[in-house]
């Protein structure tokens, strides 16, 4: 049942800030809260160089990246679910993430051959752009297959996702075969997902893409509500449905592609975050989109903090952690639907 919270978004924002601050402090090199305060200039007490490097160069980009990717996946998931009118749509399950990952991995393996013709300033953009392209192709394919005349065929939707995931897995397998040792490491990291090697220079282009693609979903929030009526009915109340769909597919591909460019494929965030927020606050997208984004961001920040602390100094791949939570969650969702709708 939906509970009534006067100001849900500031509440979620507070939780997000708390998760960011908390995870800045934990890790292989613990940082005290007073040090954190002085690092951001709120305390005059000086901090030593190691702490400063850990906070600024290692942890800050990592935590920020985890937050942005989580927010992007959650908002992208909410948008996909609205597009398909189905709460089971998730960028990972539908193959959007793996399409983006295949493109990203191709850049890693073959990128050097084209890198010399790309101006140096644009090189960091190659990966996010490729990931966007891959995400766009897979989203379009799934959409074309599963949505016929405004009705989403749920079975086809999930099967199309399986097919795309299988195809991209084959593609990545081929690339693994031709990759050299160094590339192989990067490849495996990419397919499992993680924020391990995150540096400022590597993530800035993708963060810029996210900063554009995610907040701009908000102005169409009420149109996403109307889409719940059905595509034809949304048209009747004044939505240019074809234009909205093209926009959503592009924005989801941008958000997920940029996310994949930063951290590889991280599953289930796009499923869990919107669903939990919908349970708490109802389905209206004006609150759902920002709340799910904040929730998804906080969720990945905490998952990442856990990934780098529980087997410290080693690190668990974050995709393993999110799948550990998300897999059972998805099964639970599926079981509920199966008993209700015979799906």
């Amino acid at each position, binding site marked *: 049942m939906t509970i009534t919270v006067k100001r849900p978004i500031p509440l979620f924002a507070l939780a997000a800030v708390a998760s960011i601050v908390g995870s800045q402090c934990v890790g292989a090199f613990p940082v005290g809260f007073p040090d954190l305060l002085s690092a951001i200039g709120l305390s005059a007490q000086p901090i030593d160089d190691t702490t400063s490097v850990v906070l600024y160069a290692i942890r800050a980009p990592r935590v920020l990246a985890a937050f942005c990717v989580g927010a992007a996946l959650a908002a992208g998931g909410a948008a996909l679910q609205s597009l398909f009118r189905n709460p089971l749509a998730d960028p990972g399950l539908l193959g959007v993430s793996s399409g983006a990952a295949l493109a990203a991995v191709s850049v890693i393996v073959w990128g050097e051959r084209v890198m010399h013709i790309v101006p140096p300033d644009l090189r960091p953009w190659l990966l996010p752009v490729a990931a966007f392209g891959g995400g766009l192709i897979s989203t379009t394919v799934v959409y074309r297959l599963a949505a016929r005349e405004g009705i989403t065929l749920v079975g086809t939707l999930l099967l199309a996702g399986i097919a795309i995931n299988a195809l991209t897995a084959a593609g990545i397998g081929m690339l693994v075969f031709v990759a050299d040792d160094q590339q192989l490491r990067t490849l495996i990291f990419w397919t499992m997902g993680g924020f391990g090697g995150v540096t400022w220079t590597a993530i800035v282009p993708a963060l810029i893409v996210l900063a554009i693609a995610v907040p701009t979903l908000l102005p169409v929030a*009420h149109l996403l509500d109307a*889409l719940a009526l*059905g595509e034809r009915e949304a*048209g009747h109340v004044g939505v*240019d449905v074809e234009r909205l769909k093209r926009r959503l597919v592009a924005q989801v591909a941008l958000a997920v592609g940029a996310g994949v460019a930063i951290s590889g494929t991280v599953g289930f965030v796009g499923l869990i975050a919107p669903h939990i927020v919908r349970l708490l606050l109802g*389905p209206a997208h004006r609150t759902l989109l920002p709340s799910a984004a904040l929730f998804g961001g906080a969720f990945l920040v905490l998952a990442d903090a856990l990934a780098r602390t529980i087997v410290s100094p080693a690190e668990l791949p974050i995709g393993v952690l999110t799948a550990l939570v998300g897999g059972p969650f998805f099964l639970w969702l599926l079981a509920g639907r199966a008993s209700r709708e015979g799906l």
Partner: protein
Amino acid sequence: MSTLRAEAIEVRAGTRPLITDVSLAIEPGEFLAVIGPNGAGKSTLLGALAGDRPLAKGDVLLDGKPMRRWNKRDLATRRTVLPQHSNVAFDFTGLQVAMLGLLAHRNRLSEPQMRKLAKQALGETEALAFADRPYTVLSGGERQRVQLARVLVQCDAEPAGSPFLLLDEPIAGLDLSHQHAALASARRRADRGLGVLAVLHDLNMAARYADRVAIMEQGRLTAVGRTDATLDPARLSAVFATPIVKVEANGTSAFLSLGH
């Protein structure tokens, strides 16, 4: 004066024609009922008039302009459509669903105004009790009343009234008293000068509320005219391929079908 008319339209599914050579105009201020057997093309005709369906031949003109040249938003202020059995994804409440009828008016109306208008419409369809309940848990008839409220609020939000109201089987699934309430709501709008077209299966309801009746058979419009003249028992018996008699008593009349 607003006009909505189909001119010699043909709609196809693939290569198979669903409706052929249909010309029909809805006059402002009238209630026009479309009747006919299943599969005769009634909903297809309504979809074409709503601008939903691509036309193989002919044109649907709203205020003289072909449907395909209207943008969706302007269209939403000029004609309102109630489709057959609608599902709503996710747990939107009755009030949220009704408020979606005001989407094209969001720039003009404040949130409390929209809420008030939607509640008024829910009150008119006796669906106010469902305002805070998720649409997905409502029964078929209750959903239909929420959808009807969504359509009425959209149609009333336009200061002059959205000129055309298209209802596809608006009373399907409703109990008798709500059937009358729904058609009376439509009738009131016709009396205010709106053009109302409703696909109906109940001949007595058509006879009671409509000014004119159009009969569709096998994709063609075979009769259109004043209600009492068009609803002729002999013609109806042929159209529906079952004996239909008109019984008159105490100054009122009713159509009866007793089966074969």
